[in-house]
């Protein structure tokens, strides 16, 4: 046990921003002058933390800073992070496409990467020829490819076109063929970057299944980058969270995903602007899961707590005339469902004046996507206050059914329900 196959030590990577031109030459000469005198690169000290959204002072930026981790043999390590957190840079270093500015990566096995499928296809060559070419680029020998040729063709589902030049292929067919070649690679360490978001639904299922085979069935070491929390949770044994080029957390998938989702929330305030109604009573403040963000990221199946503060306290008899609705709409602006105190039989009207209405949903049974919430407050059957798109929650896919399979919202609808199947 405890067989470490890959060791990453103090990896840092600096990038220069802006254009390459005459000004760059001055820096290069400067750097060279330091180098021949045996001094350290002067520009390594000036880099800034890599935050995409903030405009910095320096031309140099650290895409990765002091990355340290170890991977054991047979482990599936997930890497998550926002766009620009340094995931791809890390994978590029690991797959030897570019060298780190500082630090070392040590490995005991071959690393092969599925960074982006389909590079190295030659449009004029037939599918069969391209399988050989692409396989060789990925590091397979001719013999290996020959052995697997039939499997590769069968997996791609392009058997009919296999002797036709690839330029006649549709994009989808190219992707299928490319993924099929890569899927039959047998390196010690496989690096996978978002390749599953390819092809049609049928092929995606096939691809994810194949990934599971590789990691679980064959016991291969896999580094897996994805924004898809379902597959991260289903496939990985440990997860690294990258933030602005640094490792924020290494933990179990559940904890890491939770941490990542929390950190990913933006700081936009809830808007109370888009308002209709006579405003006799109105919502003054909304608190969601303890925060005041307009965008709230929640995992499917997790719970959510919403608290609404009214402009003034309601007397018990006033409260009885209040109906409060939350209309949840999907990305297409069509209502998915509505929540209301009217729909809760256990809702108790308090005996004293109240200022707060609270709602808790245990287990959001929604598929992944962006849901906006419109609040609707009526008093005595008259609209008192309506806030359109008051806040949004982004539901992130997790392994809701604990089977690793998830329906896609567009095709299969927006609801998730636990269900029992049996056969007889």
């Amino acid at each position: 046990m405890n067989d470490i196959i890959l060791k990453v030590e103090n990896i840092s990577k600096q990038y220069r921003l802006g254009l390459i031109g005459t000004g760059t030459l001055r820096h290069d000469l400067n750097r060279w002058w330091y180098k021949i005198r045996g001094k350290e690169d002067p520009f390594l000290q000036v880099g800034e933390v890599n935050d995409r959204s903030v405009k910095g002072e320096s031309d140099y930026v650290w895409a990765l800073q002091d990355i340290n981790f170890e991977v054991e043999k047979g482990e599936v390590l997930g890497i998550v992070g926002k766009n620009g957190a340094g995931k791809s840079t890390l994978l590029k270093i690991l797959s030897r496409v570019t060298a780190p500015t500082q630090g070392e990566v040590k490995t005991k096995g071959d690393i092969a990467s599925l960074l982006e499928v389909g590079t190295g296809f030659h449009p004029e060559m037939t599918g069969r020829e391209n399988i050989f070419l692409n396989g060789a680029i990925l590091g397979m020998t001719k013999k290996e490819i020959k052995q697997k040729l039939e499997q590769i063709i069968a997996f791609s589902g392009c058997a009919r076109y296999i002797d036709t030049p690839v330029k006649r292929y549709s994009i989808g067919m190219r992707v299928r063929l490319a993924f099929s070649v890569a899927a039959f690679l047998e390196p010690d360490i496989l690096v996978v970057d978002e390749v599953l978001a390819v092809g049609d639904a049928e092929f995606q299922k096939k691809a994810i299944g194949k990934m599971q085979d590789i990691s679980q069935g064959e016991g291969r070491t896999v580094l897996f980058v994805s924004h898809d929390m379902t597959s991260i949770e289903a496939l990985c044994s440990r997860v690294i969270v990258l933030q602005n080029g640094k490792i924020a957390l290494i933990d179990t998938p559940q904890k890491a995903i939770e941490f990542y989702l929390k950190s990913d929330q933006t700081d936009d305030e809830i808007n109370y602007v888009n308002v209709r109604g006579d405003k006799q009573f109105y919502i003054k403040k909304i608190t969601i899961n303890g925060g005041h963000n307009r965008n709230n990221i929640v995992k499917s199946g997790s719970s959510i707590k919403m608290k609404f503060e009214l402009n003034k306290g309601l007397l018990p008899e006033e409260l009885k005339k209040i109906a409060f609705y939350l209309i949840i709409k999907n990305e297409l602006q069509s209502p998915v469902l509505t929540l209301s105190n009217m729909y809760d039989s256990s809702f108790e009207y308090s005996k004293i004046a109240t200022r707060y209405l609270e709602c808790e949903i245990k287990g959001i049974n929604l598929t992944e996507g962006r849901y906006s919430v419109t609040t609707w407050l009526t008093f005595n059957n008259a609209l008192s206050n309506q806030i359109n798109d008051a806040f949004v929650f982004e539901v992130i896919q997790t392994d809701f059914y604990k089977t690793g399979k998830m329906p896609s919202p567009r095709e299969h609808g927006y609801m998730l329900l636990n269900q029992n199947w049996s056969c007889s």
Partner: protein
Amino acid sequence: MKIQNDNQWLYTISSKHKLFALNFKEIWRYRDLLAMFVKRDVVTLYKQTILGPLWYLIQPLFTSVIFTLVFNNLGNISTGSIPPFLFNLASITAWNYFKECLTGTSNTFTKNQAIFGKVYFPRVIMPMSVTISNLLKFGIQLLIFLGFYLYYFIVGSSVEMNLNILLFPVYVIMMALLGLGLGMIISSMTTKYRDLHVLVGFGVQLLMYLSAVPYSVAEARLKFPEFVVPFVEYSPLTQIIEGFRYMLLNSGDFSWMSFTYTLVSSFVIFLLGLIIFNKTEKKFIDTV
């Protein structure tokens, strides 16, 4: 269970690099890729053309005709007893191989950045494959040369080979090394600053005129201003072209001195190219 010596690691990725880090074992492991690239170049070159490989013949033939018209008929450059057309065809055949190797490899990094940016394989495979696949082109052009050679021989012109023909493979290797070496140097230097790229086009043209392609070294000594002659004489390419004509047409001169000089300088340029190429390949993707 935890014995971890550093030599246990298969390889290390770091920012440091050795001066000469060519990993022959690795290149050997990727030999199938080399073969695939060569095959790709050869197979795909004539897809969807009518004349196909004939294009290879047309270019040197026409150039030879023009050279003969301009330099020999108009410019009165003497080619001794050799038919001027054959003289030019020999020079151009040799020169073309070098030129194709140089121009084919000089854009290795910029042309292949998409694939280099995604997968790792020993980068040197790419220029090597160009050099090898150009051999085919060279072979075809050599055949057409031999055809004309035979024709002139039958017609009774004074053409003869000499024993130096045994050195033929060495000359091919020298041309390949020179083209590859220079190409790798240029491709490495153009990753960040593209200035050299502009130079390649007409630089190659200039080099051709300076390397005794349309004339013999003896003619150059006779007619060039004194200060230009050393440039012509010490260009390793001059020696290759001259040597090529010497063994095929028995014209010009040959000395073991200059042969050794050419051999050594080809190797030096090739090694220099390898070193610069290796230094560049690790980080070029950030600057290309």
